[in-house]
């Protein structure tokens, strides 16, 4: 039951038009090898769910540069002028979601909840077209769960079973996304023998990881 495979085979699984949850915050903690391989294999028409689009030529910005993204669900594109250009030119559909709501929608998708009830966005443009739910006299916005065909995850360390451990602010959206993809592909800075990551240190449990990208050849 070895999950470890080469970078190219890991990305071969992903068809054009697939939806992807991609970890990272301003490129920190993004799966850079997987992103580079997506660009190399010329994937297109992707739906990408990610906190932000980093910068041109960095992180998921490379997928933006390659015009590989048809639809983007994100909280912030302010530091990537190319994302803004494609959005305003109508080349890419962009759905802007408050960051905490984005995190919680992904969590809901991965943990079987029907949605998220939040004060965030009530009465603003974010609420347009959405239902609200009153709880004890207060109004909450009903935000839908988010899942995707694939989750692309960057971990600090993995073991050969697929248990993952993250580091500092490179953690960000990775743990929640690892629960919400139908197929979960992870790259790690290091792959260690099973048992080297103690039970209390495991942050993403091996059972949800389908493919682990092998070390660079």
């Amino acid at each position, binding site marked *: 039951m070895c999950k470890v495979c080469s970078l190219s085979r890991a990305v071969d699984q992903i068809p054009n038009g697939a939806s992807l949850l991609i970890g990272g*915050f*301003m*490129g*920190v*903690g993004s799966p850079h090898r997987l992103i580079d391989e997506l660009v190399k294999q010329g994937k297109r028409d992707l739906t990408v769910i990610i*906190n*932000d689009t*980093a910068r041109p030529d960095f992180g998921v910005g490379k997928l933006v540069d390659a015009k590989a993204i048809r639809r983007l669900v*994100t*909280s*912030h*594109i*302010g*530091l990537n002028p190319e994302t*803004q250009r494609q*959005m*305003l030119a109508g080349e890419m559909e962009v759905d*802007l979601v*408050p*960051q*905490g*709501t984005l*995190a*919680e929608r*992904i*969590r809901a998708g991965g943990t079987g909840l029907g949605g998220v009830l*939040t*004060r*965030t*966005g*009530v*009465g*603003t*443009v*974010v609420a347009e077209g959405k239902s609200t739910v009153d709880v004890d006299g207060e109004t909450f916005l009903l935000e839908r769960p988010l899942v995707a065909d694939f989750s692309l995850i960057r971990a*600090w360390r993995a073991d050969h079973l697929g248990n993952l451990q*993250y*580091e*500092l*602010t*490179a*953690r*960000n*959206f*990775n*743990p*929640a996304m690892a629960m919400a993809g139908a197929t979960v592909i992870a790259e790690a800075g290091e792959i260690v023998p099973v048992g080297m990551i103690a039970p209390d240190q495991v942050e993403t449990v091996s059972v949800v990881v389908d493919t682990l990208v092998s070390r660079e050849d």
Partner: protein
Amino acid sequence: MDTKNLIAQRVAQELKAGDLVNLGIGLPTLVANYVPAGTQIFFQSENGVIGMKPLDIPNTSSDSLTDAGGMPTSVIPGAAAFDSVASFGFIRGGHLAVTVLGGLQVDEAGQLANWMVPGKMVPGMGGAMDLVSGAKRVIVAMTHTAKGAPKILKACTLPLTSVRRVALIVTEMAVIEPTEDGLMLREVAPGVTVDDVLAATEARLIVGESTPTMAVAA
């Protein structure tokens, strides 16, 4: 002292020992420089850390420890790292004592607009909507006017960040507290008169019998 540092200095007086505080990118970041020595404030960065402090020793950065702008940062002893879900759990759950954000507009209801200018600038709201909806106190730190035009208006013309009333507005001219009754002028900056503030403000300001001067170093 320049405008931004004057604002930052005044905002810092609002922070109390032990507070969990989030500082927005830009002007609000300067607030950290004015916390009195010996007062421990816990700064949160929404990308997943509490106990952030500026990187002050050269060549000690890590690719895995950054602020919300993606720039290298550092932490105090006793800091904690966590994922984005937990990070916004603190924010939405009312565990944040104070958030300090920049503003494009604030209106008479104390509502803030700070995340987009339709058709021109659409950076996305990032964490701003959660911060303004969830922090115990929301402090807007901004210049009083933009290119001479008032930013404190009768009603915001830009899309709101939240319908919630902010707790305080601090500019280089004044400290203004939005209340149920309207915007109360609480303080003026050194060398600024009440009339100066009224002239630079579109919104109606409620002025008390006497208006103290901000206790800031020149």
